[in-house]
């Protein structure tokens, strides 16, 4: 069979072309939409996370590249493990959106559906990861050499250092992504969970049906029947409506309301099939010790938990070298992400940006010697501080937030920007703690 399409003179779906012309407005938007279109065509769907990030195309690019690398490219962990770890990480914050997303992908890469019944159904090796997952998600400063040691202790269920590093990167990535999802409100936009019908082989996916590359029996209900209710499948004609959506998200907030309304109807529609859909939708089954959550990095315990000094262990000097050594190329990708988020055009002064970044790190007990933390109080209004803290530490839609999110940014893109900062700062914080623990393990 030949896949070459050299001589094909296709007249594409007219819709597609129509949108094409419409979107070619400026290069910035074009770049974003191209990225989204690529993501859509690659994965058969465009998640709302990417849609949100589309307002910062250069960041989106490096984000997607990193995510693709850690989930699908070379690495010591098998694909289904990666998705399962992602599920575990997202479940810590009860992020239904990510849990169901990765559940579907877990099945698609051939994971055992049994595992999705809960953590206790997963292999022991993955369950061992639960502790460090818990700690990293909520109180990363507790990460210690002993955790690493316990995981690497030789035995039947042991982890190799390279595997562990990938797992840690994956965990940190997903934890921080939960913050973004929560902050941008994409969680309400729950995608339909993979329906595991009796008799439908595991790993079956509707997208495959649309591709025509499945030899399996047709699903009980044809994909076309469901298409109107579902988010886009793998279709180029639906690129049209998605492009519109991208544009909408790039435009201003009033669209957001409509979008939310839309998603509510989506939710409503899904209720009918709840008994089908509940499978794997409940993240709590992947969580042990649900009470464990964020606590103030208490000053009084300072002698107990040393403040993490960036000047002693920084991403640029130390974290990068270690992570890149144990999981090749990831350092460059993450470095690019941090750089990109730092160089995003920010409407306000760069001081504000630094204040936000340092405040998030401060929440996690990471301090900069060369920063006057009085600045944080001076530059960040209370609403913004509360918002940041809620997004960073309690990105859990299932619980009522400690306080109403009173921060109302002027622009949607500004909110996305803050969310990105939260996500990246949190990612770096978790990585720093985890990598420091690994360094300590390696020295001992």
């Amino acid at each position, binding site marked *: *069979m*030949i*896949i*070459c*399409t*050299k*001589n*094909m*003179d*296709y*007249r*594409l*779906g007219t819709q*597609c072309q129509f949108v*094409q012309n419409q979107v070619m407005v400026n290069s910035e938007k*074009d770049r974003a939409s*191209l990225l989204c*279109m*690529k993501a859509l*065509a*690659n994965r058969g769907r465009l998640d709302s996370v990417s849609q949100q990030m589309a307002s910062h195309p250069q960041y989106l690019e490096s984000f997607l590249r990193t995510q693709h690398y850690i989930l699908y490219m070379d690495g010591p962990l098998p694909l289904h493990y990666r998705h399962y770890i992602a599920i575990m990480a997202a479940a810590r914050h009860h992020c239904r959106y990510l849990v169901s997303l990765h559940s579907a992908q877990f099945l698609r890469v051939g994971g055992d559906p049994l595992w999705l019944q809960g953590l206790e159904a997963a292999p022991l090796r993955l369950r061992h990861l639960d502790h460090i997952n818990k700690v990293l998600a909520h109180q990363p400063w507790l990460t210690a050499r002993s955790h690493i040691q316990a995981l690497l202790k030789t035995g039947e269920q042991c982890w190799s250092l390279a595997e562990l590093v990938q797992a840690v990167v994956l965990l940190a990535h997903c934890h921080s992504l939960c913050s973004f999802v929560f902050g941008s409100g994409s969680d309400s936009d729950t995608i339909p969970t993979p329906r595991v019908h009796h008799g439908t082989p595991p790993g079956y996916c509707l997208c495959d049906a*649309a*591709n*025509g*590359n499945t030899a399996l029996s047709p699903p009980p209900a044809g994909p076309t029947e469901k298409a109107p209710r579902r988010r886009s*499948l*793998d*279709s*180029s*004609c639906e*690129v049209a409506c998605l492009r519109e959506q991208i544009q909408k998200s790039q435009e201003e907030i009033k669209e957001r309301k409509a979008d939310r309304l839309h998603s509510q109807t989506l939710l409503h529609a899904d209720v009918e099939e709840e008994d089908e859909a509940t499978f794997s939708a409940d993240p709590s089954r992947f969580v042990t010790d649900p009470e464990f959550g964020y606590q103030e990095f208490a000053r009084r315990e300072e002698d107990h938990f040393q403040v993490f*000094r960036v*000047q*002693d262990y920084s991403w*640029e*000097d*130390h974290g*990068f*070298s*270690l992570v890149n*050594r144990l999981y090749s190329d990831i350092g460059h990708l993450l*470095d690019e992400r941090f750089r990109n988020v730092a160089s995003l055009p920010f409407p306000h002064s760069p001081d504000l940006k630094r204040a936000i970044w340092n405040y998030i790190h401060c929440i996690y007990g990471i301090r*900069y*010697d*060369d920063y006057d933390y009085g600045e944080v109080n001076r530059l960040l209004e209370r609403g913004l501080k509360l918002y940041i803290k809620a997004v960073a530490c309690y990105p859990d839609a299932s619980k009522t937030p400690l306080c109403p999110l009173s921060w109302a940014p002027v622009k949607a893109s500004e909110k996305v920007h803050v969310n990105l900062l939260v996500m990246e700062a949190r990612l770096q914080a978790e990585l720093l703690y985890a990598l420091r623990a690994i*360094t300590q393990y*390696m*020295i001992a």
Partner: protein
Amino acid sequence: MFCHLDAPANAISVCRDATQVVVAGRNIFKIYGLEEEGFVERLNLRVGRKPSLNFSCADVMWHQMEENLLATAATNGAVVTWNLARPCRNKQEQLFTEHKRTVNKVCFHPTEVNMLLSGSQDGFMKCFDLRKKESVSTFSGQSESVRDVQFSIKDYFTFAASFENGNVQLWDIRRPDRYERMFTAHTGPVFCCDWHPEDRGWLATGGRDKMVKVWDMSTNRVKEIYCVQTIASVARVKWRPERRYHLATCSMMVDHNIYVWDVRRPFIPFATFEEHKDVTTGIVWRNQHDPYYLLSGSKDSTLYQHMFKDASRPVDRANPEGLCFGLFGDLAFAAKESLMTAPQSVGDVGRKTYPGGDRRYPIFFFKKPDVTEQFAQVSSALSVFESEAGSGVGMDWFINTAQSYLLSGKPFAELCEHNAQVAKRLNRPQESTTWTMLRIMFSEPANPSLSTNHNLNKSGNLPLVNSFSMKEMSAALNERNKENRQDNLHSLETNLNNNDENEETEGSEGQAEYLFGDAELDDDDLYSMEHDNQAAEEPEYLLPQEAFPLRHEIMDHPSAPEPVQEKPESPHVSGSETESTCLTPMESFSLISVSQLLFSPHLPPKFFCPIVKEMLCYYAEQGDVQMAVSVLIVLGDRIRKEIDELTQEHWYMSYIDLLQRFELWNVSNEVIKLSTCGAIMCLNQASTTLHINCSNCKRPMSNKGWICDRCHQCASVCAVCHHVVKGLFVWCQGCSHGGHLEHVMEWLKQSKHCPAGCGHLCEYT
């Protein structure tokens, strides 16, 4: 010598006369005296009950002119100078808080007493005049954080600065507006730089990309003249005094050693100091004119003085050896001369030796020993083993075998039979016999009878013989039982073992022959004697152990089949054609065949596994990995579990490698397909990339995905459903429209025309 510090050190510096060293870190700031017997603490500069962050030092430098003057770079962005001559306890003299971020480096001017330079995370460098309260000039790198600043030693006005984005800039101290020169030295941050103490234009830089580079700045274009690849990111680099080509490095992460490199020999460090238990953060040569003492501070809270004579020399442990194949099968081998002086052994045919440095041969590139170069001179001798013309047997047998062996697709017995014949045809009797034996061992219980029938049919030209043997069966057995004392001792199984072993030993048939006293056994007398003796000595001998020595002996005589043909007592009851040709004395023949027929069905195939395993290993070790792998594949599950995965994988890899060298792609692919190792099977998945062109703009699709970068359209869209086709794409050769296989099939069931609407009458067959 070394001493423990109270806290991790970040940097160290020595005073000019090399009598004192200052150690600075987050929680330490002390001066130690260098005495004969060790370090002696002289002064603690960290005073006050709760020291401020001004005491948390990222870097420290002792003035090289003024012995009471020190400067530190604080992590909070302050630059502090200290005057040891101050009478009070607090020696702090000046405090500059102009930098907004951590100051990474401070540097005194080598000859100007009052000039101090700092480089900070905020991207600025500042020059201070210590007589004034604030900086005299500020240099903006216009790029990211400054990691290091160094005054040139020879040029009064010049300094170099290295940056986090990989750049190195050269500045004139009189011109703060613009750098004189800039070049990209590394990918990623340049953590350190150091001017050569003698060579005016040389600058060494070290970066996160694990490289140390030496740049020549004296020319118009900055030129990289040396490059050393280390194993971890380079935190500090310091030229060694009095040694033009030597420099010392230590790393930022993971690696705790200090290396001294000869930049002309970038592959192996000239010397290594391995004392530290955590990363080394500061290195400094004790004296500017003494190349033998190196001081180092580390995160493990120790301060060391290393003597050069104590350094370990990795060169001494390295093996200067090389091995290479020539185009025509010659083999060149170079090794230390001392190792090569051993007399040539008998096996060395076609060996030519070239003693080290023999200049008669033009192939030698002979490097003239450099007197200044302190490198261990190693001279190697080169031997070339030439393959003899004519005696080069070639590998035709390998190719033939590979092509003719059947590995799957037929019942087990037939595969063995086929392969046995192939081997026989290629005049490889040993392999042939192995295949035959395998068939006998592992055939299903039903198969022996089948093969016997087969046998009967084959030897149908001797109907009398066969019928005779049938009749004699029981009689022979009885007779045997009577005559053979041994058999009484043996259980049924051991009895079988004997048989089996006889099979194994292929024609020797020691026991039976001996007992029956066949006169024609001249060849095998030895065997049978041994055999019997052994058997008598240990009545309950285990066969597998014994079978091996025998086997191996036979292996050494590749002419094994000839005895088979000469000797009438062929053991191949169910076996090869040899049987039909031989004329068998009735007794012996019937006996063997009887026992085989009677007992073989009871023997679990598993029983043979250890033997077969050994056999496979034997073949593999003999270099005939082809046999090992072929047997492995044909036997499949029967043997697979007996051999550990890694060994199997290793065999497969070697075989596949060989096959590919002989361009037997089909065979190698078949082997890959039939293998059961995960690692092997995935070989088929590698390099399966297909490069495609966009269907719209007809230019190559440069990146992954389904969207063309240039025309921003989805490539390869199904003409029926307009979705992207990921997977099988079927298209009409007439109009070149197509799409999902299923869709096109369905479409063409209903319509004759092309789904794209081009009007072409497509056909699907």
